[in-house]
């Protein structure tokens, strides 16, 4: 019983690590560090899922943890590393709003998400239902990262990190989604990654930069 209490607390700790890493990504200027943080976030998600699987004795959660490990911690980071090597972008990340403001907006989003999740979490019978607020906050923060970044690569990382948040929300509220759905999402994310990669090469070829603000122009000047 004692052991179980510690395990549930450690799920809370991993959930907090997820949120902490979301914030670290929001404040990060370098693309290379952004990829490292994304990998760490994936690892925290895997750890949280494994602990939930062990506590609740749900075997299918082990499989979904394994899928997350392969896609989020191994394959996608390698793809991202190769992508930024090819595109030769390692350092500069331009933000549309400066970083301290983004952080303050981030706090507001966290308060909003926590409040929003409280009544929903009460409906859930899961042992880790209180972490639903954290999962929701991660989703919103990644969403904001996609909005505030001007370059394409950080936006893709924001998209992937949003998927991490959604995955954790599913684990926290209902012990994960059905296996078929999870396979589908993992496959979608991988394919999306490839398509976005090709898309980025196209953007750069067309505009000589990865700044997606160029896409807003309809005509050639």
């Amino acid at each position, binding site marked *: 019983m004692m052991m179980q209490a510690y395990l549930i*607390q*450690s799920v809370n*700790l991993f959930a907090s690590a997820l949120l902490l890493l979301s914030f670290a990504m929001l404040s990060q200027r370098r693309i290379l560090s952004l990829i490292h943080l994304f990998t760490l976030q994936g690892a925290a998600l895997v750890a949280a899922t494994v602990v939930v699987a062990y506590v609740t004795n749900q075997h299918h959660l082990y499989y979904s943890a394994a899928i997350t490990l392969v896609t989020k911690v191994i394959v996608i980071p390698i793809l991202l590393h190769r992508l930024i090597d090819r595109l030769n972008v390692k350092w500069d990340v331009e933000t549309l709003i400066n970083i301290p403001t983004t952080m*303050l907006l981030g706090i507001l989003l966290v308060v909003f998400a926590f409040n929003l999740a409280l009544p929903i979490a009460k409906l859930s019978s899961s042992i880790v239902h209180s972490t639903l607020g954290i999962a929701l906050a991660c989703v919103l923060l990644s969403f904001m990262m996609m909005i505030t970044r001007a370059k394409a690569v950080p936006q893709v990382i924001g998209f992937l990190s949003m998927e991490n948040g959604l995955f954790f929300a599913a684990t926290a509220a209902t012990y994960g989604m059905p296996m078929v759905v999870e396979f589908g999402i993992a496959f979608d994310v991988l394919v999306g990654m490839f398509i976005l990669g090709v898309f980025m090469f196209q953007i750069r070829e067309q505009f000589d930069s990865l700044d997606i603000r160029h896409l807003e122009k309809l005509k050639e000047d």
Partner: protein
Amino acid sequence: MSWSGVFSQLLEIVAALLLAPLLTGWVNQCRAWLQNKSAPSLLLQYQMLRKLFHKESVVAEHASPLFRIAPYIVFGCMALASGIIPTLSIDLPLSPAADAIALVGLFAFARVFISLAAMDIGTAFGSLGARREMLIGFLAEPALLMVLFSASLITQSTSLTSVIETLAHREFVIYPSLAFAGVAFTLVSLAENARVPVDNPSTHLELTMIHEAMILEYSGRHLALIEWAASLKLFAYSCIGLTLFFPWGLAEVGSPGEMILALPVLVLKLAIGGALLALIEAVSAKMRIFRVPEFLATAFMLAVIGMLVHFLLG
């Protein structure tokens, strides 16, 4: 108040006064090792203090009395702070005198005086250092308060001793909010103690320096007191961190015998903490001064998130 209480309080302050230069020496030594340099002696700080106390103190012509008394005030504040913080024992006569908020106020008081003294002479370096110090201070203080509050939320008290007593005695529970507070506290203490990502403690006469720019005009016993106070501040911050996040091994009753038993534990914890500090300093580069507000905003935000997480997860 019993004689034993007075004695244990004195023991605590004396231990702080003696251990603080040793901690600074240890951090410098670790840093030199990590940078592949031959390390200075562990006792170099004591030798420097002795040398400075023997030297004549030269004061600028236009200095006001404020300039002369500032080192004593700063040293007094830091010595009092290390008497309030439960470094060796939880049960101290002085500790009910000030809670976490008053402690932050005490650090702020010392900062105001050192900045005023730096501006008193009217040199360019002094005013520059004082302005930068105030910039860092006003951003670091709220973050430090939030860190202490997130620990207080767990135990429903702002008194440091009762916070630590509860944390140490309750059965072991993982608090996610303390993880946030721990990261935030590390950032704040790097900024407050003029450590590498924010300020470089080993430079003199560079445009990037902050703390050293303020004390440039001091010499002799005044400089010795200020250097000693800086060591005491590092010691006090390390002890706040160690007692909040690793609250084991403190003496529970303020008897001198138990406190002497707690001393090796404290020294061990400080040795590990100092080595980690040197590691952080060795792997990070000094950031631009205009990045510092961002650095401290991150610390503040992490501490606030810690409190929010506490409300969510309990």
